[in-house]
């Protein structure tokens, strides 16, 4: 075994290699690994958060749904009420109209009857005279029987 200058040369080589490893090889690898560890931790955190948020969103959605359903029920009820009111109003309106028309018709009828009666009143004396003269076979003087005819007319 003989030691020679190789010893010195190799000490330098060894120290250079150590320096290189320490400067250029080790730190970037460790940095990348730490960075990945951080990213994985962040990813897991994010997943947890997302899961929590999803659960929150679910309960929130359920609440909203319930609220909406209640609102819808209220609206339907109100609509039903309104519909009932409209129908009622329509019915009363119709009844009123019918009553009005009936009254008008009755008034018309009475008018017509009244008019017919007046007309009849005008003609009844003449008809009575004509009828009596036919019965008696002679001229009947209307003037003489005026009192009787008036009584007849007023009888209509």
């Amino acid at each position, binding site marked *: *075994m*003989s*030691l*020679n*200058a*190789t*010893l*010195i*040369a*190799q*000490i330098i*080589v*060894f*120290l250079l*290699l*150590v320096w*290189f*490893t*320490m400067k*250029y*090889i*080790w*730190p*970037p*690898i*460790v*940095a*990348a*690994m730490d*960075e*990945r560890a*951080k*990213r994985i931790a962040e990813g897991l955190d994010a997943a947890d958060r997302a899961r929590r948020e999803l659960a929150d969103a679910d309960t929130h959605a359920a609440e909203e749904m319930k609220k909406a359903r209640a609102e819808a029920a209220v609206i339907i009820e109100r609509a039903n009420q309104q519909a009932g009111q409209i129908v009622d109003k329509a019915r009363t309106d119709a009844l009123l109209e019918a009553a009005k028309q009936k009254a008008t018709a009755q008034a018309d009828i009475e008018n017509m009857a009244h008019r017919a009666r007046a007309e009849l009143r005008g003609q009844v004396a003449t008809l009575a005279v004509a009828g009596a003269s036919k019965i008696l076979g002679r001229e009947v003087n209307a003037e003489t029987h005026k009192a009787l005819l008036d009584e007849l007319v007023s009888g209509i």
Partner: protein
Amino acid sequence: MATGKPIESAEYILHHLTYLQLDLKSWKIVENSQNFWVLNIDSMFFSILLGLLFIFLFWPVARRAKSGVPARWQSFVEISTEFFDHQVKDIFHKKSSFVAPMAMLCGFWILFMNLMDLLPVDALPAAAGAVGIGHLRVLPTSDPAITMSMSIAVFLLTFFYSFYNKGFKGCATEALFHPFGKWLFPVNFVLKVVEELSKPLSLGLRLFGNMYAGEVIFILLACLTLSYSAPVHLSGVGTAEFFIFAALAVATVFLFAYGRGKWLRAWIPLGLMLVIAIGSVGGLLPAIGGSTYWQILFETGWGIFHWLIIGLQAYIFMVLTVGYLSMAAETH
């Protein structure tokens, strides 16, 4: 070893343990120089090459490191980074920007260098020989200059780090008044010096010793078939037997790997391999040379076992480096 003439084992081993050296005074390629101002170019070349390999495997990832979904190679780099970070955090309790990167560099660099031991012992030296380079040692960690340079560098860093953390007074107190109190300060100091010097020595020599021994064993196993390095004329029967042996080896590996719990069956082809090996050594079977079989068996076995040493030694060096730095950082 392209000489063609029969080679002596001693010559072969020596050849494999000789460095390709550069004399810094005369700027000439030398061998077996005992001077100090000499560089072992081969082990330096391979150690720097493997250091650069580490950089070029990891640097691109580091430069483009994204915090998004990592690609496969980035995942691997991150897993290893995490591994070293974890190891360092277990041992070293202060914050430091250089201990963990240094641990990663030590781990990978030594691992890469140790892995050179698994290349066939003759592959690269023979290739180098073909282009006129006489000697080549491809395993940098079997060069004490390489391992000691690393451990001395660690020692120096520990030394400075200790001063940086405890100051001159703290270091002096620790060196003089522990463990036996201030009245025995010379004893304390001697103990401290021994303690401190033993660290780089044990750190560097442990790695060197393990890898050197591993390499020598590979070289010795290679010696088993040295006498066949000259062209061998194979007999038909011998060739057939060799192919049967190879087929049995494949069957063994296959049964071990894919036996689906019935791996015990792998002992059948393995036993047959042993029978062929023993038989051909004893001359009972016609063969191209029984030691070929032994070499295959032993080198495979040692190679598999050596994986353990390769990884373990890299790991031990890394952990001890961090440990020494942690001792330097903590006051007692």
